[in-house]
């Protein structure tokens, strides 16, 4: 059992070190994705015609294999965390942009009208009314984006030891230690479930007002 947690020295990380690194590679792109998706979503709501082309672009980007991204990016950003995080960030957009748009559109029209009629300016209405009411839909998007991101980090192994827990897969074959593969797969799955649970908890705390 101890070999489940004992990492080969070439990885230069303890088990927990790998877990922390994995989380960093997976979650920073989700946060960046959210920050980029919010204004894009708002633009798509303002200018309805933007939504279809925007969705097309994000979908096409999602269809580009990560390996292709790495090949292009490695000239610029080298064999680094950044090279892994840029494609992951782009991938989250295809989930987060529609989630935000659906969320803001889920604000009942009479609530929106009431806010306007009561003298909320556009910015205040967005931050105090639209966005908070969109939280359940946004969190739903974040859950999918996060889980997908956690599993996708492993591909970083393709550019040489940039896959965190994914690096264990290569070592498993190299050192004939299948337990390392198990360690990689099971730990990734457990991380995904835990983070997903945290997001559900966060949504409950953030939205005590949602009917259950």
């Amino acid at each position, binding site marked *: 059992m101890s070999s489940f947690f004992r990492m080969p020295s070439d990885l230069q990380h303890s088990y927990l070190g790998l877990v922390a690194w994995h989380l960093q590679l997976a979650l920073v792109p989700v946060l960046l994705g959210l920050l980029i998706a919010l204004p894009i979503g708002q633009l798509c709501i303002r200018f309805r015609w933007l939504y279809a082309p925007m969705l097309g672009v994000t979908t096409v980007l999602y269809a580009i294999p990560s390996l292709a991204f790495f090949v292009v990016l490695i000239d610029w950003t080298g064999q680094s965390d950044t090279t892994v995080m840029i494609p992951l960030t782009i991938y989250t957009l295809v989930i987060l942009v529609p989630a935000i748009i659906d969320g803001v559109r889920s604000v*009942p029209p*009479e*609530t*929106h*009208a*009431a*806010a*306007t*009629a*009561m*003298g*909320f*300016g556009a910015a205040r209405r967005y931050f105090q*009314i639209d966005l*908070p*009411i969109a*939280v359940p839909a946004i969190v739903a998007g974040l859950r999918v984006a996060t889980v997908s991101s956690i599993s996708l980090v492993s591909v970083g192994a393709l550019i040489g030891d940039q896959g965190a827990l994914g690096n264990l897969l290569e070592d498993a074959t190299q050192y004939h230690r299948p337990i390392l593969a198990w360690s990689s797969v099971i730990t990734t799955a457990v991380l995904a479930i835990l983070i997903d649970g945290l997001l559900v908890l966060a949504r409950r705390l953030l*939205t*005590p*007002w*949602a*009917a259950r």
Partner: protein
Amino acid sequence: MRIAGRRAGLGLGSGAIYERMNVDGAARGLGKWYRPRFCHAPEGLCTALILIDAVTKRYPGGTTAVDRLTLEIPDGGITVLVGPSGCGKTTTLRMINRMIDPTEGRITLDGQDIRDRPVNALRRSMGYVIQHAGLFPHRTIVENIATVPRLLGWDRRKARSRAMELMERVGLDPALAKRYPYQLSGGQQQRVGVARALAADPPVMLMDEPFSAVDPIVRKGLQDELLRIQSELGKTIVFVTHDIDEATTIGDMVAVLRKGGKLAQYAPPAELLSAPADEFVEDFLGLDRGIRRLSFFTAAGLELTAKPIVAVDSTAEQINARLLPQTPYVLVTDTEGRPLGWADGKARAAGETRLIAFGHSFRAGRDSLRAALDSAVLSPTGWAVAVDPDGRAVGVVAQETIAAAIRTAHAERAAAPTAGVPATAAGAATAPGPQRDGRSDEKSSGRSGDKDGASAAGDVPVR
């Protein structure tokens, strides 16, 4: 200070309006049910006069939502905009707080063009109530109500205590303060909507079909509550509905709009029901406008008889002594005097105990002829039962007697020369602005003297 300034700013001309409105209110007998709101308003009470001046709204596609609409919305009263869907009533309402901008014409509030004020400041000075309440689902009830005070920069504690005060005013249990909107019934949510609109004590309230989405019983309760609150606060309320019954129940003035946003008639409800301007208005009022008009006649003058009322434990002899020649029936009450049902007098004297349901009773001296007539029509015996505030039967009256009272009331109304055509209607059509000279003013007060007598005959919305 603000209010005093605004009042002063109205100048001489608007004094005439105040005077005229007051006269009008008295003539229509409103004072009996409302405090005379127009000039005896309590200290610090805000009211405002809205003028819609030849306003047109055309959309790019070419549809005309509102067509050269001119309306003088009196301050301190409830003005109802009513009409079928597509008549531009909501558009009109939304132009008042600039959620929609008119294509032509202008709207003034107390003589000032509404475009001269910053839009959000204007909106914060107008309470807004909407169908389905439109509460903020993510905010508690007390936070919802405190919204506008917070926008106006009140500190949290003051806004909260104001919100709690308003919950009480609209009849909400303070225990609901920390709840979220989804935990409330539709009727309660709508009360929160009203409280939220009242929170910053705006002089104007805009209400867009606020009670359309709740069931009839709750709606009746909300209407009564609105009238009660209005009698205390005297706001200038513009109320949109498609329900003509609601319009005539709550409106001091009713504007009937037709498709395409044209004004069909602008009149107090009693006049609307008695003298619809054209076929469209008549159709819109429906087949029972004659019956509905009876709401404006009091049943106080009805001659009641207490003779055929017997207690449940009466003897055969007692029952026989109370029989009327006009009807074989007697009304049986419990020992407290509350009605139980009708019975054939002779049969009951002979020992028959079965009772005939009496439908519903009406309150003697308070309800309208409409309620009395309905009670008589519902009763299988053709007699209506009048009760006192404690529910004890005080007398009964036959359909025939009510019919005679209706004829008398109509005759009295017809005899009063100007009754049913109050100055407001004429004034609104001819003088949209507050520019009236002192002379016409005197004239209208002179007229009101004659009208007071007539209004006693029943130009009173009996609610």
